[in-house]
């Protein structure tokens, strides 16, 4: 019995160690890669920041030091040197890893709500403001109701008599 408990504990420790290995991947990726062309460099940086590492919890390939992120950065650099466009490079990655790798989801039939709702809310918000202000512009600032006035007077009288 005790033996079994020890094994169970060991398994737990092993699991913990494994999860820590994953956590270890949180350290930054630092690589000596520099393009001669500043435009290319800028495009590389922005691609590295907007492509998601498929292996990591939630990191761009530019921020992760997991091996696959390194491979992907290398491939991005290679494709850039070949003269591919950003769109083509994104397509290239989507072909292999799915749309999941885009941090900037494209407008498709399943993301229209994502992009559309904020825009729709801005329009709706403007309409709501317009309606409320129009309704209230002419409303006189209502004074206290008769009942409220009575209560207030009663209070004031009570204060005085005190």
């Amino acid at each position: 019995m005790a033996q079994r408990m020890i094994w169970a504990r060991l398994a737990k420790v092993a699991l913990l160690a494994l999860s820590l290995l994953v956590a270890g991947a949180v350290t930054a990726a630092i690589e000596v890669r520099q393009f001669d062309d500043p435009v290319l460099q800028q495009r590389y940086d922005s691609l590295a920041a907007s492509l998601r590492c498929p292996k990591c919890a939630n990191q761009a390939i530019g921020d992760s030091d997991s091996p696959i992120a390194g491979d992907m950065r290398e491939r991005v650099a290679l494709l850039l040197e070949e003269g591919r466009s950003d769109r083509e490079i994104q397509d290239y990655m989507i072909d292999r890893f799915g749309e999941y790798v885009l941090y900037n989801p494209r407008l498709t039939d399943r993301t229209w709500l994502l992009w559309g709702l904020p825009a729709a809310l801005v329009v709706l918000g403007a309409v709501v403001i317009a309606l409320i202000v129009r309704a209230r512009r002419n409303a006189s600032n209502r004074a206290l109701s008769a009942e409220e006035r009575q209560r207030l007077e009663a209070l004031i009288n009570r204060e005085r008599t005190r």
Partner: protein
Amino acid sequence: MKRRLLLLIPLAIFAILAVFLYQGLSLNPSARDSALLAREFPAFQLSTLEDPDATVDESLLTGQVTLVNVWGEWCPTCKQEMPQLLELAERGVRLVGVDYKDTRAKGQAFLEEFGNPFEVNVFDPEGSLGFDLGVYGAPETFLVDAEGIIRYHHTGYITPEDVERTILPEVKKWRSE
């Protein structure tokens, strides 16, 4: 009455959100389908692990249903799943290995130690085939039908239950297509 209904809107929105959150509890956010499902196995031209002079390409995977397993000597889970792969081979499934980001010597030693269920192993030291397959960690397993189309994808460890519950039924299903 109309206003009362308006006041119920926040509650309704929250109820919908709560249903999704409840469903979210039983989903695994890190599990994903391969982007290559229902697509042709990517083209490649690589030597085999067994023989540096022998080259193979994607035609290796046409003709019959094949299970392609991406592994590497450096990957501890690959060692654990070897018994299941050996069992699959024994039960008549054709297996092809992709030795991913490995050295030839280490890969060969691995097969010697843990057994070799593979008909042949594609040697992919740079991980280029792995990249085209969208592999982001070993082991990963792909089921390819007789036309060379990828039909099923399994990320990570194949447990003995997985063999019975998903791998074998999938093999059977695509054989009969």
